[in-house]
């Protein structure tokens, strides 16, 4: 079963008077409960592809189906609710809300999904323990290291129990040691939470960890390497 299906996707940016094709005729399936890495050189269209999968951008052509829903047909509010329920985001710059504490940052998506307070507290506590920073619950992001912030971001992305977590170069702003730890954590979280992780990366170590490796160049998929899922996910 696929968590994402993309058919004949095309995306073109209009820069002044010039049309710049970012994605050309993309056909891609993202398998459920798999660790998928999208790799490619800068400007190849990785981020655009992630944005389309994450339902925060719309293709010019083609169809995107996420968690069984043809998301292009959803109105804006419904699409927002859909994202809140089914998609988690991990950003390169962490993008935590600086005025909220760590636990409040993790709790925020649960508020959007209208999870009852008692359940929220329980889930936040469990997630912070799972990502290894239960002692930082009352800290604000400014008091944390880069690695700790990314752990918070991972916990936040997993908070609403999404079907899909997207991470755009999540280790780009971390040193190699911390980056490796974060990749391992994401892998662990992906296995434990039975969720699909899709992220873009140049890192060969990340590529080596992936169930599926998608190579993209000049807006086209160059290759898709599918391996046997290490967590027993559906193929």
């Amino acid at each position, binding site marked *: 079963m696929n968590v994402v299906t993309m058919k004949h996707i095309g995306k073109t940016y209009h820069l002044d008077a010039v049309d710049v094709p970012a994605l050309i005729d993309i056909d891609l399936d993202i398998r459920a409960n798999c660790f998928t890495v999208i790799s490619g050189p800068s400007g190849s269209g990785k981020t655009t592809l992630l*944005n389309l999968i*994450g339902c*925060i*951008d719309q293709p010019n052509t083609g169809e995107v189906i996420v968690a069984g829903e043809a998301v292009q047909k959803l109105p*804006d*509010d419904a699409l*927002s*609710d*859909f*994202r*809140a*329920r089914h*998609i988690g*985001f991990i*950003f390169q*710059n962490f*993008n935590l*809300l*600086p*005025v*909220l504490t760590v636990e*409040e940052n993790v*709790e*925020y*998506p649960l*508020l*959007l*999904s209208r999870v009852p307070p008692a359940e929220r507290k329980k889930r936040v506590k469990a997630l912070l323990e799972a990502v290894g920073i239960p002692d930082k619950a009352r800290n604000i992001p400014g008091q944390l290291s880069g690695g700790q912030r990314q752990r918070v971001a991972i916990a*936040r992305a997993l908070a609403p129990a999404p079907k899909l977590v997207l991470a755009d170069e999540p280790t780009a702003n971390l040193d190699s040691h911390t980056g490796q730890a974060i990749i391992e954590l994401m892998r662990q979280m992906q296995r434990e939470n039975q969720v699909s992780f899709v992220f873009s990366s140049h890192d060969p170590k990340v590529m080596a960890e992936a169930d599926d490796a998608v190579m993209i160049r000049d807006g086209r998929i160059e290759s898709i390497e599918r391996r046997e899922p290490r967590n027993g996910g559906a193929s």
Partner: protein
Amino acid sequence: MKTLSLALRNLLRNRRRSLTTMFAMVIGAMTILLFGGYSRDITYGLQTGFVIRGGHLQIQRKDFFLYGSGNPAAYGIPDYQHVIDVVKQDPILAPMLKVVTPTLSLGGIAGNFAAGVSRTVIGSGVVVEDRNRMRQWNDYRLRINLLPSALTGTPMDAVVIGRGVARVLELCEPLAVADCPPHAKIQVEGGASAPPDISELAALESRPAAVKGDTRIELLAANAHGAPNVASLRAIKAEPQGIKELDDMFIGMHLAQAQRLLYGTDKPQVTAVVMQLDHTNQIPAAKARLAELLATTLKNSPLEVQDFETLNPFYGQALAMFGAIFGFIAVLIGAIVLFTVGNTMSMAVMERTTEIGTLRAMGLRRAGIRRLFVCEGLMLGLIGAVVGVLMSLVIAWGINNSGLTWLPPGQVDPVPLTVRVWGETRLIFGTAFGLAVIAMISAWLPARRAANMQIVDALRHV
């Protein structure tokens, strides 16, 4: 999270900018409240002055208000005591009444023939005890303490005159009028010499020599039949009347004296029955009841009722003027708040563009983003307004206890300078609510811009 909590934390994020914006709002709120309190105090002062002098309502003979000043005696109310009795005994009016008293207006020429000077005057005959009770009306608790009328306990021929009248009639010295500088008398150039027989007659009627300290004056007025009548009166005091025109013409006397001058041995009349109510807001009810009485019990008398605002057009003009100035200031402050808060919120939106993209990506709806920024604007407005109200109360208290005085228009004596903010619930809440709403409106446009951002563009923002 509780949008309010998040909004408050965001405001505290850039404390200096938030404080600067709030400071502008505090100044704005203080300006509106202090000027509003000041103008409110003037309004109450004016109203109190007019109500003390002429009551809330006057029952007059029909058309007296428009035409009576030319011949007051012809517009008298013959059976005025009956009118007073009806009013006082009416079960609806009685609980509202503080004073009901007759008054007689008259015009004439006052002369100090010993000094060879005279001038036209407007006189008023009053029941002194009633007037003294009217002077105690102070519904707005102004810091005034009016002494009883100088006519209290005086003989029938005693009069109080305006300082301007005293000056023209050359009574400054005996009445101890200040601001009365000595002046050179202008000698009227004579024309051709009068014939000898006329000169002899004139010499026989020559004016008596002025007696030092004498304040006797003569008042010439037309009686009810149009014939001239003269009363010999004694000025006991010169009082400032607040307005120069009135000060130069006023002469106050006992009602009986004025009636004797105008009606002689005829049945005495008055030109108005003055009614002072407990509270100004009772005017509509009292007027309505009086209209019923005039149409029933008093239907045989051609009477009408005038309220103090009609009798004193200056009151309405002053109210309108202060209203216009207040409105201008309020609009100006509103515009300043609008642009200040709008600018602050625009900067906040710009600085937090990535954050907006993140929130939207996580599933916050456009309305949620809008609500967040509008909420921040509203909080800025509310906090600024509340601090502004508190500051205004403190400053108003300081002014009210500073001992400063001023002479409001229409008042006789200087009154303490006061700013009425405390207790003016409508003014306070109106200002706070207005500023908060303006702040919210000014945050609306940046909030809308934030809500309409494309998520990917917002996330790309550096």
